[in-house]
C-alpha cells in the first residue's frame, strides 16, 4: 500500500474554501494606488533635487561678483563594500550575521549611530540577535553581551532624545525595548496579557502627544501609549478598535487638532477590506471617524509606512530594503 499524498494535500487545501478573495477590481485598484504613490514620490524627489541644485548654483554664482572656481568634489572613500556601484548609486553592504539569517525591518539613527532591527528567527530553532548597530553603516555590530533584546523579532525602531525605542514580539506577544546607545537594550513593560501567537507590536512612532505603538492583541487591533518609552499602557478604551470585523491599525499620524490612525477593516475571512480611520484630540479618547473608505486589501506596504531610511551628515542616507534578501543596507554617501 502507498500513501496518497495528493489526497492528503487536498484535504488540507479544502480549508481554503472558507477564504474569500477580493474581486478583480479591488485587486487592480490596490495595485494602481501603489503605482500612483510611487510616481508621486519620484516627482517629489525630482523637485527637491532640482530645488537643491538651483540653490547651490545661486550660492556659488551669487554675491561674490562672478563665478569662482568650484572645488573638486571629493571622491567617496571606498569602504570595502562588496557591491559598491561605480555609477554613483548607493553602495550596498550586507550586515554580517554569521550563521544566522536576518531580515531587516526598520532603521533609525541618533547622534551618528545607526540601529537596524529585524527578524532573526530561524524556521526551526533559535535565532540570532534582532538588532545591529553601526557608526558608519558599513561595519555592523551585535548588541553587547547580555544586552540584546530577549526576542528574535523586532518589527520597528525609532530614535528619541534619549536613545532608541523598539517594538516587536516575544514569547508572550507584544513587547517593547529601549536603549540609550543601541548596544544595550532593556525591556519596557507592555500592558498586554501573555497570549503569544500572532499578537505583536508592529509599529511605533513619536508624536507631540507622546509615543504610540500599534499591533494586534487578542486577535484585534491594539494601540499603546507611553510618555517616555519606559512602559506602555493602553491608549484609552480599546473597544473602539474592536469592530465586528477583522481590523488593523496601519500607522499613527499627527494632524491638525490631534492624531489619526488610518487602518483597514474587512469581513472575517475576507480580503475585501475598506480603509478606515480613528481620530483623537488628546491621544487617550479615540473615535472611529471614517468607516467606509475606499476598498483596499490591507495597509499600504512598508515602502510607504515603514521606517526604511535614516541619515546623518557624515555617512549620508542609509536605507534598508524590505523586499530584498533581508540583511542588505544601502548607503548613499553625502556627496553622491
Amino acid at each position: 500500500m502507498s500513501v496518497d499524498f495528493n489526497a492528503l494535500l487536498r484535504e488540507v487545501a479544502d480549508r481554503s474554501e472558507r477564504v474569500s478573495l477580493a474581486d478583480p477590481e479591488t485587486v487592480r485598484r490596490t495595485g494602481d494606488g501603489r503605482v500612483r504613490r510611487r510616481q508621486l514620490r519620484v516627482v517629489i524627489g525630482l523637485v527637491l533635487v532640482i530645488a537643491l541644485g538651483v540653490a547651490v548654483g545661486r550660492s556659488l554664482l551669487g554675491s561674490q561678483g562672478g563665478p569662482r572656481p568650484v572645488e573638486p568634489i571629493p571622491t567617496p572613500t571606498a569602504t570595502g563594500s562588496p557591491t559598491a556601484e561605480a555609477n554613483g548609486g548607493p553602495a550596498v553592504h550586507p550586515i554580517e550575521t554569521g550563521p544566522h539569517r536576518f531580515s531587516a525591518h526598520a532603521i533609525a539613527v541618533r547622534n551618528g549611530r545607526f540601529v537596524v532591527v529585524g527578524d532573526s528567527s530561524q524556521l526551526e530553532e533559535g535565532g540570532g540577535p534582532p538588532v545591529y548597530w553601526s557608526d558608519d553603516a558599513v561595519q555592523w555590530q551585535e548588541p553587547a553581551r547580555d544586552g540584546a533584546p530577549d526576542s528574535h523579532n523586532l518589527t520597528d525602531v525609532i530614535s528619541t532624545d534619549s536613545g532608541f525605542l523598539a517594538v516587536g514580539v516575544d514569547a508572550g506577544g507584544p513587547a517593547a525595548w529601549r536603549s540609550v546607545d543601541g548596544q544595550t537594550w532593556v525591556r519596557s513593560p507592555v500592558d498586554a496579557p501573555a497570549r503569544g501567537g500572532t499578537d505583536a507590536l508592529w509599529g511605533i512612532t513619536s508624536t507631540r502627544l507622546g509615543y504610540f505603538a500599534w499591533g494586534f492583541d487578542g486577535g484585534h487591533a491594539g494601540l499603546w501609549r507611553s510618555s517616555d518609552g519606559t512602559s506602555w499602557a493602553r491608549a484609552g478604551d480599546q473597544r473602539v478598535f474592536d469592530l465586528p470585523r477583522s481590523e488593523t491599525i496601519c500607522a499613527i499620524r499627527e494632524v491638525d487638532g490631534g492624531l489619526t490612525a488610518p487602518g483597514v477593516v474587512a469581513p472575517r475571512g475576507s480580503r475585501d477590506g475598506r480603509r478606515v480611520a480613528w481620530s483623537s484630540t488628546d491621544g487617550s479618547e479615540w473615535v472611529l471617524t471614517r468607516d467606509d473608505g475606499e476598498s483596499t486589501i490591507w495597509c499600504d506596504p512598508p515602502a510607504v509606512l515603514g521606517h526604511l531610511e535614516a541619515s546623518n551628515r557624515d555617512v549620508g542616507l542609509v536605507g534598508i530594503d524590505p523586499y530584498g534578501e533581508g540583511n542588505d543596507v544601502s548607503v548613499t554617501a553625502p556627496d553622491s
Partner: protein
Amino acid sequence: MADRASFDEFYLGTREGVLRQLTAMTTDPDLAGDVVQEAYTRAWQRWARVSGLDDPAAWVRTVAWRIAVSHFRRASVARRRLVRLGHDAETRPQHESDTRLDIEAALRRLTPEHRRVLVLHEMVGLTVLQIAEEIGVAEGTVKSRLFRARAHLVAALGPDYPAAVDEPPVSGEVGR
C-alpha cells in the same frame, strides 16, 4: 481595457487553484489568502510583463510563497513557543476533523521547503525539472527534498497510516 480584461480573466480563472496550493504549502488558509491576494496585486502592477510569461500562475505562486516565507519567519518564534506552552490547540477551529488536524500537524513538521516541493509535485503536478526551474534549485535537490518530504510525512503521520516510502520514488513523468 484589454489589459484589465485579460488580468480579470487570469485572476478569476487561477485564484482558486493558487489559493488551494498555498493553503497546502502553508497549512494556514488565512495566511494563504493574504499572500495570494498580495501576489495577484503585484502581478497586476507588472501585468505587461507577467502576462507575457509562459505560466503567469507560476509567477504568482512563487511570489506568494516568498511572501509567505517572510510571514513564517516573522511569526515563527512566538508560534513555536506557543506550541511548547500547549496553547496551540486553542487557536484551532473546533469543528475541524481529527483526520484533517492529524494531516496538518504532520505537514507542519516538515520544513516549509519540503512542503513546497511536495505540493508542487503531488498537487500541482509539476515534474522534477519543472519544480527545479520554478524554485531555482538543482534537480537533485528537488529529488532529495521530495524523498525526505515524503518520508518525514509518513513518519509524522504515525503507524496508523500505511507507509511505502522505501525508495526515492521521484520521477519526472508527472505532467501538468
